[in-house]
């Protein structure tokens, strides 16, 4: 039954029905989505309170004020890196999961963060990025690696107690100013070591026992608890410093080296007669790893992008895996049989066939990244929020912090203009699908 033959009453009834079915959606879309677009465009040409027409001043301010410029620059960094990395990671995961039997479990693990709010994900990553290596997992991991290659010194941060007799080298080591003869003894008192940092097992420091064919000495904490004591002299209650490396140097070459015992005493034995420079190399004084400042000005944006990748990789993987499943197995088998290596099949067959899916994932991510807000607000601490700023965050701060609706609207219009290409992409794809 076609429209033309339908009786007029029926047709009018149907018009009513169409209206009733569409009304709730159209009213809401009109009032809360469409009308605001036009309002924002108009409002962006007025000042903060809306009383004065200011032309393009808000737009000029947007591209000159440091805060908005940082936001725009950071959004650019986001758009350049986040969508491409997420898509690439998703592609790799999707291809690799095809090779394991437990692919479903893997997918669930990767996809799970998608169900979590940006807020909770942000809290999760803020914990990871704690600067103190004892508290933040990221720095604990980095610290564990650093400590293998550069272990903290036995007497980190210590100074000499006899500043006139001992010189500090540029690298942070200590050396006795005068040369030391074989058979003599050397006293190396150190201070500025908090009691809890004295190496374990330290006992009362011992006077060095002279050695005929070498140099003996003591490295000790030249500080008597409760005061008293003479600098450069081992007093009662003063403990030796074990584990300190001592080197004897002649003509720039290390001739002998040893480590102090629990009473701080050391003996460099078997040395040819002569005089030597005695020193404590810088490694003794190396401070323990203090932690990378992930949420400082320079690293904060990459750090937040990492959290974003953690959240969205699952989305890319699932969509790409579905696309992968749609590729006929025979196509891949055929190219393998033709002698293509796995990598060649991947590059020459899989990726080109997946191109439309990859494009969809990429565009979806670009739109999403342009609007990124919660993650930055939650992960960047107050001090770094200026450096991590993005357009959506700046918009919120401008409109609802300092209540400048003019500049806020200009930022909103700018954000809208940025997604117009994606809008065109969607409409074009939809029309292609329909025909």
């Amino acid at each position, binding site marked *: 039954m076609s429209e033309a033959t339908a009786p007029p009453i029926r047709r009018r009834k149907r018009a009513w029905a169409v209206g009733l079915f569409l009304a*709730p959606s159209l009213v809401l879309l009109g009032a809360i989505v469409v009308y*605001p*677009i036009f309002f924002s465009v108009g409002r962006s040409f007025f000042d903060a309170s809306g009383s004065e027409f200011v032309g393009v001043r808000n737009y000029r301010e947007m591209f000159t004020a440091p805060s908005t410029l940082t936001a725009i620059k950071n959004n650019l960094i986001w758009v350049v890196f986040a969508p491409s990395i997420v898509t690439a990671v998703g592609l790799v995961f999707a291809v690799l999961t095809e090779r*394991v039997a437990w692919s479903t479990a893997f997918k669930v693990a990767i996809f*799970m963060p998608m169900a979590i709010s940006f807020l909770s994900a942000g809290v999760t990553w*803020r914990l990871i990025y704690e600067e103190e290596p004892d508290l933040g997992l990221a720095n604990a991991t980095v610290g564990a690696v650093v400590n293998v290659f550069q272990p903290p010194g036995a007497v980190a941060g210590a100074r000499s107690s006899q500043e006139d007799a001992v010189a500090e080298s540029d690298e942070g080591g200590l050396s006795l100013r005068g040369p030391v003869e074989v058979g003599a003894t050397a006293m190396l008192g150190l201070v500025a070591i908090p009691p809890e940092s004295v190496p374990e097992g330290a006992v009362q420091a011992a006077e060095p026992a002279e050695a005929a064919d070498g140099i003996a000495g003591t490295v000790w904490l030249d500080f008597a608890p409760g005061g008293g004591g003479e600098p450069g002299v081992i007093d009662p209650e003063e403990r030796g410093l074990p584990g300190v490396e001592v080197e004897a140097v002649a003509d720039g070459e290390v001739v002998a080296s040893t480590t102090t015992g629990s009473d701080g005493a050391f003996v460099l034995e078997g040395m040819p007669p002569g005089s030597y420079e005695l020193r404590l190399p810088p490694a003794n004084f190396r401070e323990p790893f203090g932690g990378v400042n992930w949420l400082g000005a320079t690293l904060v944006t990459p750090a937040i992008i990492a959290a974003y990748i953690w959240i969205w990789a699952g989305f890319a993987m699932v969509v790409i895996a579905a696309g992968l499943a749609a590729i006929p197995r025979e196509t891949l088998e055929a190219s393998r049989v033709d002698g293509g290596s796995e*990598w060649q099949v991947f590059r020459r067959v899989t990726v080109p066939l997946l191109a439309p899916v990859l494009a969809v994932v990429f565009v979806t991510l670009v739109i999403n990244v342009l609007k990124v807000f919660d993650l930055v607000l939650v992960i960047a601490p107050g001090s770094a929020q200026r450096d991590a700023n993005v357009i*959506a965050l700046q918009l919120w701060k401008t409109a*609802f912090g300092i209540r400048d609706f003019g500049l806020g609207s200009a930022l909103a219009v700018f954000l809208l203009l940025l997604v117009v290409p994606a809008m065109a992409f969607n*409409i074009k794809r939809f029309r292609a699908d329909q025909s």
Partner: protein
Amino acid sequence: MSAVTAPAEGKAERRGSRSSRLVATLTRAPATVVLAIVAILWLVPTIGLLVSSFRTAADNADSGWWTALTAPAQLSLQPYRDLLSDPSMVSAFVNTVLITVPSALLVVAAASLAAYAFAWMRFPGRDVLFLIVVGLLVVPLQVALIPVARLYDVLGLFGTIPAVVLFHVAFGLPFAIFLLRNFFVGLPHELLEAARMDGAGEWRVFTRVVLPLGLPAIASLLIFQFLWVWNDLLVALVFAGGDTQPMTVAIREQLRSFSANIDVIAPAAFLQMAVPLLVFFAFQRYFVQGLLSGSQR
């Protein structure tokens, strides 16, 4: 020349399925190892939050959560007990439910009506109107914050739960209509025609034929909208008031001093994500289906 050392530029002589099978076997082992590491890496952050949420403020200020793995005595229910005895957090949780449930239901109701009209009714301008809906899919909700804030001011809605709900419903509609319309279009034509022949009006066809058949898509949509609204921070930050704020806003207020409030933040954040995780694990299939139909059609 073995398959392992063969250069990527394959030689003709290397073809034959035996070597490719060997390659496949050899590439499977590294894939397993790599994926296992990746999976652990992906789970660790969530586990970290979970473990932290069961530790006291003193423990969290003193050592990393991983120390609890070897000293489980640290774990205690106290942070959760404290959280649940804080009336503002409890009311925030209730607000989250009061915002999320109506938002999800209303989107489904409004969108399924509109989707039915777009899929099965003929009217002038239908295709153009639907293209506009497709275009609205990507409109950033930030564009509407200022105008709708003014609108709510005029209507006296600002700071109320309906204000937050209506905003979520409106911005959920383009995706919802798009998803459902595409699903409804694929329903068997004959069924609908038969119902109409029997004299059923549009409403009857909609409620008796299309809605029951459309349930899988509606379920996907419900889950999506539920998660989206449950997890929202920005909309509630702007439109909810002090006594109508959901959990996300309440947690974010604690963030000003992150380390000092970690004993509140960690359990609250975990509670906030426990519900979405339950929904995700219970309805995984619908979740993924909705995702695919949203981005692939």
